[in-house]
């Protein structure tokens, strides 16, 4: 985290549909000062539904995938042995390439003793950039039929410039696309709901951020439904619960119309302002602890 409270905040969750985007867009609007909102849920980006954005610019994202020169290949199979994702497969013949499985590491071109493999660009998706008042929205969108999200997420994050405050809206789960999103963040908010399912997936997400050594806190959404086991869990694990958004039908109605809670229901502005203040102070405190640990 830099000076003046400039920080990169990632919003994640184990379970899907807990309210990551709701928290991300409402926090972004309440920040008032210029903020970048990065929609990293590139399989189904949705932050734009809640923000009236102006004109957008679009850039194509490509990854480098292998192309085999059959005249040079002697079918040794080294490329296939190297590839962890089975994007290139050889049985003593010219290898088969599955570009959609390729993560673009370039390893096959390096291990090929005959220099028979070169890399060509393959389009995997697009990034769109647009503005809505104080928010610059950058969204990644994986092409239909694509299966590998991290290259697009990394491309979205590469749009960030030093010194910019940013909120990253992560995909659900705890797999590669989530890691690609939260890695490098100053603080992570894990959004959950107070149900057994919410708790189960929250524990997976907690394990993930602890492994990545990123300071984090929890936001409980739809508080009032389910039971109190999420709160009990956070208490026993000493995880701060930074906000509880009540299970209010009016919030669901505003959501269904694509409206921000902080605009449709002003009484919730203080809840989100408080969440922002707490997040910044906890992120700062965590940074201090780390700096001290380094000394």
């Amino acid at each position: 985290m830099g000076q003046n409270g400039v920080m990169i905040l990632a919003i994640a969750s184990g379970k899907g549909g807990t309210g990551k985007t709701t928290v991300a867009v409402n926090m972004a609007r309440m920040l008032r000062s210029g903020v970048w909102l990065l929609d990293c849920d590139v399989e189904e980006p949705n932050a734009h539904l809640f923000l009236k954005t102006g004109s957008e610019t679009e850039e194509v994202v490509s990854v480098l995938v292998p192309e085999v020169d059959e005249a040079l290949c002697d079918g040794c199979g080294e490329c296939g042995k190297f590839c962890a994702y089975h994007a290139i497969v050889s049985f003593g013949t010219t290898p088969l390439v599955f570009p959609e499985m390729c993560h673009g590491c370039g390893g096959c071109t390096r291990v090929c003793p005959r220099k028979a493999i070169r890399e060509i660009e393959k389009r995997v998706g697009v990034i769109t950039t647009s503005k809505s008042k104080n928010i610059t929205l950058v969204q990644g969108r994986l092409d239909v039929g694509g299966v590998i999200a991290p290259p697009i997420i990394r491309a979205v994050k590469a749009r960030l410039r030093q010194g910019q405050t940013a909120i990253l809206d992560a995909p659900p789960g705890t797999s590669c696309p989530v890691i690609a999103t939260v890695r490098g963040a100053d603080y992570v908010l894990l959004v959950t709901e107070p149900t057994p399912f919410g708790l189960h997936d929250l524990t997976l997400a907690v394990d993930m951020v602890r492994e990545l050594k990123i300071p984090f806190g929890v936001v409980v959404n739809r508080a009032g439904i389910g039971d109190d086991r999420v709160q009990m869990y956070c208490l026993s694990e000493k995880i701060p619960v930074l906000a509880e958004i009540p299970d209010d039908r009016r919030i669901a109605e505003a959501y269904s119309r694509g409206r921000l809670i902080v605009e449709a229901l002003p009484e919730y502005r203080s809840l989100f302002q408080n969440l922002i203040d707490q997040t910044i102070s906890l992120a700062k405190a965590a940074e201090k602890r780390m700096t001290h640990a380094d000394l």
Partner: protein
Amino acid sequence: MEKGIEFMKIAFSTSGHDLNAPVDTRFGRALKFLICDPETNEYSVIDNTQNLNAAQGAGIQSAETVARSGAKALVTGHCGPKAFRVLSAAGIKVYTVEGLTVAEALDRFRAGTLVEAVSADVEGHW
């Protein structure tokens, strides 16, 4: 068996561990592969749990597993496009069956009544 023709090993996708188990309808995410020598009825079973849980590329990896087992034919329920490409490249013939045990499918294979698939019969991720 006719002289001069080398009998080949056959792979079956299955969730069981012997010839009486049903042929699994899945290929890439089948629990196991049973590799059988139709001449002697001897068989071995390869665990496929790792591919069963793979996020992506289960069909490709399973096809590699079958190819490495030395099998030259595969009997399964359904086969997707990526797996079919790898199996074809490895020279493995694919036969699809429905509702048969491994032993019944093996009998039909010997009798020559199984029909060879000429393409994938399902989309990826069915």
